[in-house]
């Protein structure tokens, strides 16, 4: 997998040298072998350095990397079985949300996931991963079903936002998201949500009102895509990098603000460099958090879920100018 992001240029150069040497195979001279090992060591070191110090804007490009694992990849690698259930029973089936019961180790969970498309054809099929209202209504149907059968709910979030078309307005995009936000706080089964790539606005939050909200290290979670925020604030999407830096959308910035619960470390150079390792980390985190939440009584779980979101916010008092809220 090539290093193809802007800030990975030094890595790409090293990689070029490495593969040139590797091509020599058996004809490699002893001093060249030493050089190869030196380059490989340097590549690891530099990758580590660069990824440890990513700017928020650079993190955006990793979160949106074309090779980044999507929900379907995690489902394939993490679940022993997954039976996709489709349709909202009212209008149609949305392809940006994929959902159904799945086995993770011994446990049946209800999976509700955003799914982006990899190639042109699939991207179109999945509406670039932006759900229509029927997607949220399918999600609600299956989350209620999960409650009925006492299955925990596991969601994987990866959407830049909800679909912004006129048909979405006609079919009630606002109502669809609003109903999800109304439903999730009171569902009497554990909910674990993980942002695996992009968590954008209400379109993402609609499957993210959970007992635990986890984020992959290089994923982003935001009230609006940086391009949209820049357009709103400064009338120019070219200022997206400023919006990204100001809005603190990366996992490492959101954790100290109390807006997420845990960061899942990514393999060296990003999740796309090692699907298996990333899946193992994700699976471990989901099962561990699920076990912890499942240990609570249902009422205690619901009260904690309520308080978790209740505390989010940072505001002041005009007279005292003192801080309240979560920070």
């Amino acid at each position: 997998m090539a290093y193809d992001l802007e800030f990975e240029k030094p890595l790409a150069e090293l990689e070029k040298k490495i593969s040139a040497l590797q091509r020599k195979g058996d004809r490699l001279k002893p001093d060249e072998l030493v050089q190869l090992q030196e380059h490989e060591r340097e590549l690891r070191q530099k990758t580590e350095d660069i990824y440890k110090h990513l700017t928020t804007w650079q993190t955006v490009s990793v979160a949106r990397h074309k090779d980044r694992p999507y929900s379907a990849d995690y489902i394939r690698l993490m679940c022993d079985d997954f039976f996709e259930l489709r349709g909202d029973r009212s209008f149609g089936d949305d392809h940006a949300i994929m959902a159904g019961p799945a086995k993770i180790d011994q446990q049946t969970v209800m999976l509700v996931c955003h799914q982006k498309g990899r190639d042109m054809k699939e991207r179109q099929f999945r509406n670039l991963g932006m759900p229509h209202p029927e997607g949220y209504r399918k999600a609600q149907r299956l989350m209620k079903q999960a409650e009925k059968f006492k299955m925990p709910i596991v969601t994987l979030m990866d959407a830049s936002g909800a679909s912004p078309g006129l048909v979405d307005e006609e079919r009630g995009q606002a109502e669809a998201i609003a109903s999800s936000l109304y439903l999730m706080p009171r569902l009497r089964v554990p909910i674990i949500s993980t942002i695996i790539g992009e968590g954008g606005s209400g379109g993402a939050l609609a499957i993210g009102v959970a007992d635990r909200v986890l984020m992959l290290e290089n994923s982003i979670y935001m009230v609006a895509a940086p391009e949209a925020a820049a357009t709103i604030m400064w009338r120019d999407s070219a200022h997206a990098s400023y919006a990204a830096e100001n809005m603190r959308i990366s996992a490492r910035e959101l954790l100290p603000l109390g807006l997420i619960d845990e960061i899942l470390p990514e393999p060296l150079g990003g999740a796309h460099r090692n699907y298996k390792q990333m899946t193992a980390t994700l699976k471990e985190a989901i099962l561990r958090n699920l076990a912890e939440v499942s240990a609570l009584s249902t009422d205690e779980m619901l009260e904690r879920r309520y308080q978790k979101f209740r505390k989010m916010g940072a505001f002041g008092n005009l007279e005292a100018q003192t801080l309240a809220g979560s920070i």
Partner: protein
Amino acid sequence: MAKEAAVPLTRQVASHGEEKPARPSVGNIAVKCPKCKEILYNRDVEKNLKVCSRCNYHFRLTAYERIDLLADPGSFTEMDTDIISIDPLQFTAFPPSYSDQRTYTDKLTAEREKTGLKEGVITGHATIETKPLTLAIMDFHFMGGSMGSAVGEKITRAIESAITHQTPMFITTTSGGARMQEGLFSLMQLAKISAALAKLGEAHLPYIVLLTDPTTGGVSASFAMQGDITIAEPGALICFTGPRVIEQFMHIKLPEGTVNSEFALQHGMIDAITHRRDLRQTLGRILRLYA
């Protein structure tokens, strides 16, 4: 989006604190209707509850004007008057080319001075046709009614207060969307308010919501669309995605007023469109039916 209609209003019932500074207008005696462009006398507009007598355009009301319009005289008691926004993200780095380099804190101060409000929502208890209820009335004039932590906290406290006092909850929405300067804090207010409304529902208390111009973005996709009874004023912009973004996304031109109250009613998203002059009476009827 129509630019803020310029109407200097002297409040008729001065029961909620200091007088607001008059906003600029077409002189002090007349105003131009943003919809039909008719020049209207201010005193006629005032008399007509800030509705254009020619085309029925509903000018935006301030939160206190709305309360004066709906609540029984003298019945409103405001709560949480001291909550204000802070700058939790230290949102201070701007594109150098952008002319307005004011920080979020600067902007908040300017908005407070401009509007005489502390934040974009007023909450409290009142009666309508003698029926008690808890209210949260948003005000578009304060940073476009955008959703920040202070707005979210005030609305949540009001809903919790409705549960404590066992009253119906009434919210008037008007919002351009998220408070970008508060980043994810802004988005999480939607989860917080929705969770409180779900609790209100479990307590079997009715939630009545009035959508006014404009109700868009995150507010539309949360408490604006969670009402037991959902009413809109005529001609209000109501949508999740604003018309300009829809146009960009679809590469089409939308006719003026495509996504408005009438569109929402036609597509089954709201229960009724009610003229401003009938609102108080309508709310009274609903409160009696659900009491």
